[in-house]
């Protein structure tokens, strides 16, 4: 699956520049699902990234794990989910030496959450590379109850916490790693427009 192209209309949405190798510096690599292909492309472009690379892969049904492990990074671990690997990821960030590069590939939700963790750990944005691969699903914050709904693929959608019908506002917060969801029938309760699939 090729890298996802976005419309340039959303100014607060981060731009994912793709993964560019930075040679032999220490590297943390985190990918989910089809994001594994982006890591394979990165390694193929410059095998020098491998000897100091710690790779975390969340397969999400994808079978790229054995190929990634066979590349021979310094360490390799497969995780059941981002939530399950988060404690270990935090420890790796806390212990990362100066000039460590973070390579992220997968859904926007994964990239956003991992970026927020890395920034909170003191990493510079310039040291983070990201490539969006796979689902266009969005991570949404309900502006009313503040709950996060993962993997939103339609607009409007139902908040998984408070149950309000929310539309997807083109506004993105790096801190929450989420788009903003706003009540779609606030002015005319009950009049919810038909759901559309999110296409970009």
């Amino acid at each position, binding site marked *: 699956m090729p890298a996802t192209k976005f419309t340039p209309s959303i100014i607060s949405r981060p731009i994912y520049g793709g993964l560019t190798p930075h040679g032999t510096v220490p590297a943390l690599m985190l990918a989910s699902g089809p994001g594994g292909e982006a890591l394979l492309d990165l390694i193929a472009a410059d095998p020098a990234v491998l000897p100091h690379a710690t790779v975390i892969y969340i397969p999400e049904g994808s079978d790229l794990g054995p190929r990634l492990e066979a590349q021979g990074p310094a360490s390799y671990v497969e995780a059941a989910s981002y939530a399950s690997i988060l404690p270990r990821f935090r420890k790796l960030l806390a212990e990362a030496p100066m000039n460590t590069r973070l390579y992220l590939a997968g859904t926007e939700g994964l990239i956003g959450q991992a970026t927020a963790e890395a920034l909170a750990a003191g990493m510079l944005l310039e040291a983070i590379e990201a490539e969006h691969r796979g689902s266009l699903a969005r991570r949404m914050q309900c502006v009313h109850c503040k709950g996060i709904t993962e993997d939103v693929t339609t607009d409007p959608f139902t908040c998984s916490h408070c149950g309000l019908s929310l539309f997807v506002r083109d506004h993105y917060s790096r801190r929450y790693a989420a788009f903003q969801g706003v009540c779609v029938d606030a*002015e005319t309760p009950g009049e919810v427009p038909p759901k559309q699939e999110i296409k970009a």
Partner: protein
Amino acid sequence: MTIQFNDETFRDDYSYHNSPAAIRRFPFPFDKDDYMYAVNMEPHGSGRAGSPFENRFDVDEHYVAEMRDREITLKEDPLRCQSLPHMELAGWDLLELIMEAKSEDYPELFSLHRDGDRWHWINRPLGIDHKFTFLDPTTLPYGPMEYITRQAQGDFAVLDQRDGNLWMEAGMVTSQADWSLDFDIGMNFFEWHAPVPLAHEMGIFQRALKFLLAIQQDAPSRRLNWTMTVNPRLDTSPENYHKWGPEKRTLTPENTGEKQYLRVELQTFFRLPRSNGLAFPIRCYLISLQDLVTVPKWGRRLHRVIRDLPDELAEYKGFTVNRPLIVEYLSRFDDGKPTSPGIFPDE
């Protein structure tokens, strides 16, 4: 000068009202008969006597009631006031700025006595008499920004300046036109303005940022912004949109003059001396259309502005659905005569 503070509400029974003097001094935002985005910055702090531009922080008849409304909103949603850890010094800067300005500009209402870092602050309208140690947060009941902005009308964003950008990293936001501090905190200037249509393409934000980065101490600036609000409600937050949204659909030809308000933001910008941050107060003024048209120039002009406004702007400002009623109401006060330049009423 003594101010008679109104006993009034900005929710439920909406007893908010403007005295005849408050109508005359209203900060009408249109200096000509049409409107488009502009950076429209002016020096602030020594404007026309009696106007909201006369002092650095305008205190008017709504002061006490606005502070009561802020307290209610904060009780329901404490996330309306947030400050990232590195912003505390900027909070002290803001506290100093407001205490100095208010005690100098309104000595009968506010007093500040300083003996080194031992400060004594008296706020007579709110009944506060407080001794504390400047820069020692344990001597205040709240953080410095929250403490002082519970005593100052308008919303406050406090911006950090670094990497050639401004970062919204602290704020007190309870009277906003549909934006969320909790969502926007930590964003830079371009990110938090992302949802605004047209202005990015026009280069407005690039020019505005350049101007704001260069603001110097003791040389504050201001601009006016505006929108339309049904009922005199300060808390038109996205957080509570599902609660106040239905009110937007209660406008009828009979009640438009009474229920439809022009909402004006007096936005000011002050450089903060210790933190090099920027204080960005956003003061909200509300006037019903029936009060506004008592100034004939304003009635004529507002009709022309609203009638000819580009659709995207009416959509963004959220009054597309009520625009026909507003235009119909205001057209009765537009006799087609020319209007004088500038924002102030004709003598």
